[in-house]
């Protein structure tokens, strides 16, 4: 075994330039090189570095890429995959970076082991196993990077998801769109109460027209928000309860109690106006004007 491994390393070392140029050609024809996303010189640089690290690691005579000797290779592949994920490569394009090394390497090995099928088979098998593992690893890192991106976007959306708007002087509106989980409900409560304190508004309207489903915990959170606004001395109206949600609330046995609920934002606004002693009426026409 030991002889064999160092043999691959030797092959790599002796034919480094040729393998590299073949590999570059392979990558160019594999349709995975994206000249729009990455310059050839950069790809060459990455390929050279990978070959060097791969050679150093394989000389260590260990097929398990989780071993510390493979650390530098893993790190480098991780770096490449991460940058590609961010640059917008597809997973297969990213994996092909490693996998496309097979052909040039196999060609060399075949030349060297001519007439020795046993050696050839053994070497090919080992290289395949290794490169496959590394390819899978690169996809894994790629996936993880994309997930991180998604997570960050979710966080950003989350921060944008609770706008509190002033509907009228002293009346705040909070349209909620999307699912209300406990974390978001908490945020809804905090932003609403802070804005109430800031603007000294007397009435808050929470509009849940855009909330697709409601469960007991969501309802509980809404109730808590209403209670908290009352504690602060303001009033809270819930509007836009859709038929399905109304049914769910009743079936779940949630007691909305003395919370004022209205079918539409307009209805809630009318109630708010009334509580504040305001009235909306048609504008009086100028006396000289004719219709």
């Amino acid at each position, binding site marked *: 075994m030991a002889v064999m491994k160092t043999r691959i390393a030797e092959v790599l070392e002796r034919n480094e330039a040729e393998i590299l140029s073949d590999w570059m050609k392979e990558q160019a024809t594999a349709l995975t090189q994206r000249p729009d996303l990455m310059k050839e010189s950069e790809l060459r640089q990455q390929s050279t570095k990978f070959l060097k690290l791969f050679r150093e690691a394989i000389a260590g005579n260990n097929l398990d890429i989780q071993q510390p000797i493979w650390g530098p290779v893993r790190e480098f592949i991780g770096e490449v995959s991460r940058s590609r994920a961010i640059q917008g490569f597809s997973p297969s394009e990213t994996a092909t970076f490693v996998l496309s090394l097979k052909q040039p390497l196999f060609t060399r090995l075949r030349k060297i082991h001519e007439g020795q099928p046993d050696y050839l088979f053994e070497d090919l098998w080992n290289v395949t196993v290794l490169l496959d593992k590394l390819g899978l690893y690169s996809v894994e890192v790629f996936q993880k990077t994309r997930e991180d991106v998604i997570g960050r976007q979710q966080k950003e959306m989350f921060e944008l998801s609770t706008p509190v708007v002033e509907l009228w002087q002293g009346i705040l509106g909070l349209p909620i769109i999307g699912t209300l989980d406990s974390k978001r409900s908490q945020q809804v409560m905090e932003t609403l109460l802070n804005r109430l304190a800031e603007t000294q508004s007397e009435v808050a309207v929470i509009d849940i027209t855009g909330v697709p489903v409601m469960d007991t915990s969501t309802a509980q959170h809404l109730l808590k928000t209403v209670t908290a606004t009352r504690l*602060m001395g303001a009033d809270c109206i819930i509007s836009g309860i859709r038929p399905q949600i109304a049914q769910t609330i009743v079936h779940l046995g949630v007691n909305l109690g003395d919370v004022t609920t209205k079918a539409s934002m307009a209805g809630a606004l009318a109630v708010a106006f009334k509580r504040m002693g305001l009235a909306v009426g048609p504008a009086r026409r100028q006396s000289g004007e004719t219709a």
Partner: protein
Amino acid sequence: MGEFLLVTIQVDMHDRLATVLSDDLANRISATRARGVLIDISALDVVDSFIARMFGDIAQIARVMDAETVLVGMQPSVAITLVEMGVAMTGVRTALNVEKGMTLLRARREEERADDDAPAE
């Protein structure tokens, strides 16, 4: 302030202070024949369950003595904490600030006077 008492709490409430406040207030209500009490807690950052209950008690004591209590200016963080603790303080009226609390008390008095003036049937 007219027929209303205004209590502004500037220091951190601790249990002893709350009891003293309750005693004091009861005496003052009886001495001044106040019809309403405004408790301004806008400077309070921390309210624990005991203090919350104390406010509820004060409101009830005042009510027994024919005075309405309004708790004004509760901070958002305090409101959230109380709700999370399950303290709804249903017996206490609240308002956003002293001015609005005063308006509330005045409105209540107006109502009472209107009731008094209404001819008995």
